């Protein structure tokens, strides 16, 4: 493809690509993000290719390998577009039947999705997991092969850039402001206002736009899916940002743990450059803007703005005091605007739809949709996108299908290490920045880890404190020592060595760390402790007073035993690394608690659920 020299060129190319008819033929769509690949999606891709060749269907049935569609638990899955037939957990051997049916406009009924005993559902859009979402961003992942800019263009890509170029800087910023979009990285700062600040900075030495793709919240992967599945949307968002703010350089800072995302974004940048959508005098206009990918190196604190800037400069990622804010002095001392991946991904939507229609979804002060990573102890796990202001209950029960097994859902953790746990009794809370903060958590970037009766809340608090202790950069004494001390106390409690005074000390420490630290890591470090103390104090007291872990998680407080369901098959006896299990064949086995290391091996190998942990 030739480099495009004008906005008209771009429109003509888009029209030509859309008119090729590729989208009209039945197409086998296989999500193959990191999650899909982990589930064997690439084997399906190979099987599909082989079948298409063998049946001489090349050209009559299309094949599209895409990023994640969100229903990761059901991967490797197949979607037959444009009809929308959805096949979950497809075995490679079934690919032939699926392709054969698609060629004859039929459906393979026995491979369709069924919810438990429920009847089979043919179309993806009719499955509750999908039907109750508003998939403005995620829905686009299934339309494009992320490694082909042609796909993005054919589905209307880079039209927002053209619209922005036609409108000019002030109207672009005004539109983003009017949309009410708030930053999706956690703090919820109004995006338009931030852009306006950058636009007002003197730009003689140049200005930077940064896409924060550090996604440090453990348990969240919305940004990975966007980068892997639709990287051009992020490039386009940044290009619109460049038009609006006068920035001339861009950086996408991607965490090192996301190799596929790094690859797809790098490919997208090269393709955009080759088409003249990045670089000097883009589309023949005065706009010059280019983007570089910078890889992180595994440090949570680098997601914080000032640490991020240092890391981009190739230095140790320690935060610094603000002001000056990055918008005033950022990378190499130049004005720098930082937005989260999902924030950038929303920008093309605003320009395409217009601010009013964008804000028609969501609530007052919280416009648009938000993607959540719905994981942990929930029946249907994956990425879900809902209007801002949807309630926790709608997300966890209606979309997620509620608990996995018999154990009831107890709480949900939002906001990662800076957030907190919200009890099931408060699942009527709307998910927006303000309501969750009031409830003692934060919305954060979108991690939603569901916890049930088998999750110990003290252990969760201890887990987060261990995380923060490890990730504290150590610059502030109170953060470094405070997280360490809180972790020790929590560890003591989970070992049955806590006292009621410990709880008071925890609360005091938590407040001290909150008030005396410099960056967001320290300021919010106490949230996991304070929120669990607030809602689950009883669980703490149970550990302290009775040396009992109600969830049977804390190793020091549980014992393993074998109950009457045991058939004497010997699987646990053979698997036990401590040789702590004895028993004759076909007779109930017993665990020698003196030798038992509580490693959990017997629980995972027992097919009869005969190992009890209490």
């Amino acid at each position, binding site marked *: 493809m030739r480099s495009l020299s004008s906005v008209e060129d771009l429109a003509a190319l888009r029209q030509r690509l859309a008119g090729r008819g590729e989208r009209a033929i039945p197409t086998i769509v296989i999500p193959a993000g990191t999650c899909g690949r982990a589930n064997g999606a690439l084997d399906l891709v190979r099987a599909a*290719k082989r079948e298409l060749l063998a049946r001489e269907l090349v050209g009559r049935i299309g094949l599209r390998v895409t990023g994640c569609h969100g229903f990761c638990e059901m991967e490797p899955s197949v979607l037959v577009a444009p009809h929308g037939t959805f096949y979950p957990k497809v075995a490679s051997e079934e690919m032939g039947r699926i392709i054969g049916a698609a060629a004859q406009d039929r459906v393979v009924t026995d491979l369709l999705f069924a919810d438990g005993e429920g009847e089979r559902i043919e179309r993806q859009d009719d499955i509750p997991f999908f039907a109750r979402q508003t998939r403005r961003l995620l829905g686009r992942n299934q339309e494009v092969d992320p490694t082909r800019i042609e796909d993005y263009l054919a589905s209307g890509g880079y039209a927002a850039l053209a619209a922005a170029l036609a409108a000019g800087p002030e109207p672009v910023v005004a539109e983003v402001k009017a949309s009410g979009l708030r930053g999706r990285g956690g703090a919820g700062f109004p995006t338009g206002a931030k852009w306006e600040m950058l636009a007002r900075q003197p730009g003689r030495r140049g200005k930077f736009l940064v896409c924060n793709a550090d996604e440090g919240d453990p348990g969240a992967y919305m940004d990975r899916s966007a980068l892997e599945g639709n990287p051009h949307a992020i490039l386009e968002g940044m290009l619109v940002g460049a038009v609006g703010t006068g920035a001339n350089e861009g950086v996408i800072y991607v965490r090192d743990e996301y190799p596929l995302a790094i690859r797809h974004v790098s*490919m997208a940048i090269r393709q955009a450059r080759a088409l003249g959508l990045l670089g000097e005098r883009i589309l023949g206009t005065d706009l010059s803007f280019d983007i570089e990918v910078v890889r992180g190196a595994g*440090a949570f604190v680098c997601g914080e703005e000032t640490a991020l800037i240092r890391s981009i400069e190739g*230095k140790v990622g320690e935060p610094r005091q603000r002001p000056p804010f990055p918008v005033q002095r950022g990378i190499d001392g130049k004005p720098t605007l930082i937005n989260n991946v999902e924030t950038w991904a929303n920008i093309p939507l605003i320009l395409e739809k217009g601010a009013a229609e964008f804000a028609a979804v969501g609530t007052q002060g919280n416009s648009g949709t938000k993607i959540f990573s719905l994981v942990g102890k929930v029946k249907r796990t994956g990425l879900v996108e809902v209007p801002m202001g949807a309630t926790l209950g709608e997300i966890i029960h209606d979309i997620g299908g509620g608990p996995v097994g018999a154990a009831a859902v107890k709480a949900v953790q939002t906001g990662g290490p800076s957030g907190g746990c919200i009890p099931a009794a408060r699942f009527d809370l709307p998910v927006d920045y303000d309501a969750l903060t009031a409830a003692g958590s934060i919305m954060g970037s979108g991690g939603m880890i569901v916890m049930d009766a088998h999750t110990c809340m003290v252990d969760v608090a201890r887990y987060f404190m261990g995380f923060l202790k490890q*990730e504290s950069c150590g610059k502030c004494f109170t953060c470094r020592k405070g997280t360490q001390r809180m972790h020790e106390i929590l560890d003591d409690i989970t070992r049955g060595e806590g006292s009621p005074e410990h709880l008071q000390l925890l609360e005091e420490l938590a407040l001290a760390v909150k008030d005396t630290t410099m960056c967001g890591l320290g300021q919010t470090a106490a949230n996991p402790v304070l929120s669990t103390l607030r809602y689950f104090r009883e669980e703490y007291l149970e550990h302290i007073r009775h040396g009992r872990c109600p969830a049977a998680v804390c190793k020091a407080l549980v014992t393993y035993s074998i109950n009457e369901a045991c058939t004497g098959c010997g699987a646990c006896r053979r698997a036990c690394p401590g040789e702590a299990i004895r028993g004759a064949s076909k007779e109930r086995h017993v665990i020698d608690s003196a030798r038992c290391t509580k490693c*959990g091996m017997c629980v995972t190998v027992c097919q009869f659920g005969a190992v009890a942990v209490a």
Partner: protein
Amino acid sequence: MDTMRGDTIGADAPDVAAIAAAHRGSRAALIAILREVQAARGYLPEDALRAVARHTGRSLVDVYAVASFYHSFSLKPRGRHTVCACLGTACHVRGGQQVVEALSRELGVRAGETTPDGEFTLETANCLGACALGPVVVVDGRYFAKVNPGKVRRILSQARSGVAAPEAADGERALVTEAVCPECGRPLLDAARPIDGYPSLQVSAQCNGWRGRARISCVDGVLDGAPENAAALERVRLFCPHCSAGLNDLLRCGECGVPTVSVLAGDGALVQMCGCGEQRVRRAEVEGAGARREIAQLS
């Protein structure tokens, strides 16, 4: 630290010099340089840190500070295989800790350590981005989902035998151990003329009126690589050297969109190779002056 030693070894670090030179003038160069040096050497030994300091003009203290701050860098030698278990929140609530303990017990080392025989390095991560599938373990880039202590032994034995199968489930480089023409069934693999130490595929090639022989790295499955070299296979037609059947496929590479090359692997699997890769000549090398020039022009 002994300066003499540092200096003499440092002078012998042409790999570091080359890496540093390639990054001259680039922002964040230090982190990128350290990453590449680690990829080349397996870890960051003292002499490499000294050489990096010298070639970047940063002080050794600076270089050491960066190398020790970021978790991705290792100052100790690493094993042939890396086993990384996720301890992110989603994996933690589903029993990730027990998986780490099981791995640790099987390997006889703690997280962050390498087995004495140099086979395995055990690591933990804060989240590997596949949270819906937790607990997750990644071995040499391959993801294992819903791991529990009972599955650990099998994962390790799979890691020991490596990814030799052409149908590597993770789509990382698929090594074709045996390859034949899909049309006539005769062998295409030539162990006598390796690329990157692996047997290469010998095929006939045609390009702008020129005809000759091409060699393709057999280490490359269809789904690895980057697109900048995509044009190579689009312009070069490849044929079976025995029966002259065309090997360029109508199907396009899922990763970069150019037509792929089909061969049959030993077990009957159809392997499709694509010209995409970091360095073109490594992937699809075409012999003969005319063709080489053609490819060189495309770079």
